[in-house]
């Protein structure tokens, strides 16, 4: 028994889609051995000889010299003796495959008895509801007798047609595809909404409003309460002549602003004076621990910085290592961070003594609450010009009050008096020759 085998153009290179027959090496009637070249082919990438895939007699050339054909195209037919199994024709599967698939589809299509007759797709139900169609009246042409969307549309169109001009607005079955395209799926990119709770006043007309306590307010309240209830506060005040300091600052502030870009404040000088005094009286830098007093070696000054609705105490660490210019910079930095709400946890930790510049809001006298668990807090009040008696003469001097609240468990009047005296001496000893750096 003889069979016919087609030789096809092979995929010689990856991007190759077609090839040109350059020259036939065999002619019809010639005997061809397996792997023997039958023709030469030219491609974009390579020129090659095309070997036969079978042994047999070349019976027909399908593509002539110089013709270009796509990869996979048969170029000749070789007649083989059906002795070996190598002669299995390559064309056969290709031709049977579509037949099998169409047969399969036919089988599906003719699987009658209409098992899908009553399974309605969402589209069908929607259309039926829209047009008031009873689906039992519609014949189904889909798989298993299913009523398709098109069946409903056709039914509507035909009934409209028979009903004549009665239908008007709904007649536009050709839905404008752009009309109702929704694009509203849920997406996590939307931030969840915070529910708003309306607080109804229980006593209308009383003119009261309620302000929710912020976490910040709550923390301030807790700390203040803990401080006043645990620490027995005592209070003392001293008056300082800062005339020289005022002169010094006025002399330096413009130059400093130019050089450093920040304000040279009195507070920086005060901090320097306080820190130096703490160095002489380290007990001021301590904490009550019931059976002992812990004296801290590091002098970390908590600086009370107020905003519209709160007060915070960011910390200048190792304040004794800094000169006046360095302190001025730190003050500026912390005040800015506080206003901008950019303080970090580390900015707030480790304070050992607190200074509050109460003069900045015009106070001349204040009774501060200790920043728990420290031992004392000092306030720097407004600088005011006052007549002062010096050597039995009256002079106009710039005066300021320093107020100190102290933990009376740790500190007593004498030590605090000495401490304040030292601060006073430090402040009054600033002269025009004092250096910032």
């Amino acid at each position, binding site marked *: 028994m003889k069979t016919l085998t087609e030789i096809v153009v092979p995929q010689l290179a*990856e*991007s190759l889609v077609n090839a040109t027959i350059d020259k036939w090496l065999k002619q019809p009637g010639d005997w061809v051995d397996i792997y023997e070249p039958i023709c030469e082919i030219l491609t974009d990438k390579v020129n090659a000889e095309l070997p036969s895939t079978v042994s047999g007699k070349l019976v027909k050339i399908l593509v002539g010299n110089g013709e270009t054909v796509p990869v996979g195209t048969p170029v000749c037919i070789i007649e083989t003796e059906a002795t070996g199994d190598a002669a299995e024709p390559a064309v056969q599967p290709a031709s049977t495959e579509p037949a099998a698939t169409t047969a399969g589809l036919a089988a599906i299509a003719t699987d009658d008895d209409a098992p899908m007759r009553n399974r309605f797709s969402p589209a069908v139900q929607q259309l039926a509801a829209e047009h008031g169609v009873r689906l039992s009246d519609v014949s189904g042409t889909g798989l298993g007798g*299913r009523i398709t969307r098109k069946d409903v549309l056709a039914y509507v169109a035909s009934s409209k047609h028979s009903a004549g001009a009665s239908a008007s607005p709904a007649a536009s079955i050709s839905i404008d595809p752009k009309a109702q395209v929704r694009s509203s799926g849920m997406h996590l990119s939307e931030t969840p909404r915070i529910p708003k709770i309306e607080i109804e006043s229980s006593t209308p007309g009383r003119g009261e409003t309620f302000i929710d306590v912020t976490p910040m307010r709550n923390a301030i309240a807790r700390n203040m309460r803990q401080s006043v209830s645990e620490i027995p506060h005592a209070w003392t005040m001293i008056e300082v002549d800062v005339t020289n300091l005022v002169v010094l600052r006025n002399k330096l502030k413009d130059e400093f602003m130019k050089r450093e870009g920040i304000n040279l404040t009195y507070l920086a000088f005060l901090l320097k004076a306080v820190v130096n005094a703490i160095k002489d009286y380290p007990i001021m830098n301590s904490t009550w621990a019931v059976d002992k007093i812990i004296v801290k070696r590091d002098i970390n000054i908590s600086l009370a910085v107020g905003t519209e609705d709160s007060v915070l105490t960011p910390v200048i660490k190792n304040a004794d290592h800094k000169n006046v210019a360095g302190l001025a910079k730190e003050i500026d930095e912390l005040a800015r961070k506080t206003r901008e709400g950019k303080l970090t946890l580390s900015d707030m930790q480790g304070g050992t003594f607190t200074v509050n510049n109460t003069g900045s809001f015009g106070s001349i006298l204040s009774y501060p609450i200790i920043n728990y668990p420290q031992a004392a807090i000092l306030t720097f009040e407004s600088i005011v010009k006052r007549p002062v008696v010096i050597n039995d003469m009256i002079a106009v001097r710039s005066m300021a009050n320093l107020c100190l609240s102290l933990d009376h468990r740790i500190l007593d009047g004498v030590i605090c008096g000495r401490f304040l005296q030292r601060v006073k001496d430090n402040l009054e000893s600033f002269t025009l020759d004092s250096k910032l750096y």
Partner: protein
Amino acid sequence: MAVMDYIDAIRLAMKEEMERDEDVFVLGEDVGVKGGVFTTTKGLHEQFGELRAMDTPLAESAIAGVAIGAAMYGMKPIAEMQYSDFMFPATNQIISEAAKIRYRSNNDWTCPIVIRAPIGGGVFGGLYHSQCPESVFFGTPGLKIVAPYRPYDAKGLLKAAVRDEDPVIFFENKKCYKLVNGEVPEEDYIVPIGVANVLREGDDITVIGYSMPLRFVEQAAEELQQEGISAHILDLRTIQPLDKEAILEAVRKTGKVLIVHEDNKTGGVGAEVAAIIAEELLYELDAPIMRLCGPDVPAMPINPPGEKFFLLNKDKVKEAMKHLALY
């Protein structure tokens, strides 16, 4: 208007962009002197010199990395991955760096690179020359991905990609290079990224796809027309971001949708398209959403029967389209 091959349209786009803007340059393996293994960059070396058609070492991570650096410095690199299969050593640069630079720098920096990578099988290429890696990069915010099918779109999208401020992956199908041709204007034009295109109007079924398989879809649609089945074909063109409105509009036309791509089915682009349809258009569906994709096997086989099994062809597509139409 000239009729040209897909590959020629890509080459023309690069040539025009390099002439237009001297910041544009190409880099990759063998893109210079040789002109690319597929001849995609042929002639660029002669015209623009070795600094603008730059041969690189065999290191895709370096190709992407150098391109990213140059882009951040103000250049407009077109980085070629010789085959998309070789792209994986560069995924870290592409996904963790290029895609995130704008976000990470709070809009201070952008990364206007184009990464061209040939995808697709059916070229007797086996494991390492046939992959479709769209799903690896798909769903990475910060990347745009285009995969044109027509030469017209290949040129227009590549030019749009070069001019885009953000990283764009340009997946060109290597089987399309010489096989697909069409009219391409020789003047300057762009095809906007993120806009799909209706290839054929019809009202029985909707077929959504991108790249090479659309050829089979078009052929099958032509044959099905004879049998009285009319197919509506949507070419996504851009797969990230997907043109959601166009997808919904196309599905709404027929209520029956088939999604076709060569990348394997699980986790592919079709899964996302199907999810969008399910989210938005449940009540307009007349049949289950169907997908015809590559099988979930690890790689394209090198043996011809295996390759044939793996790949889509006109008959497979036609059968699926017919099945959906009859549903």
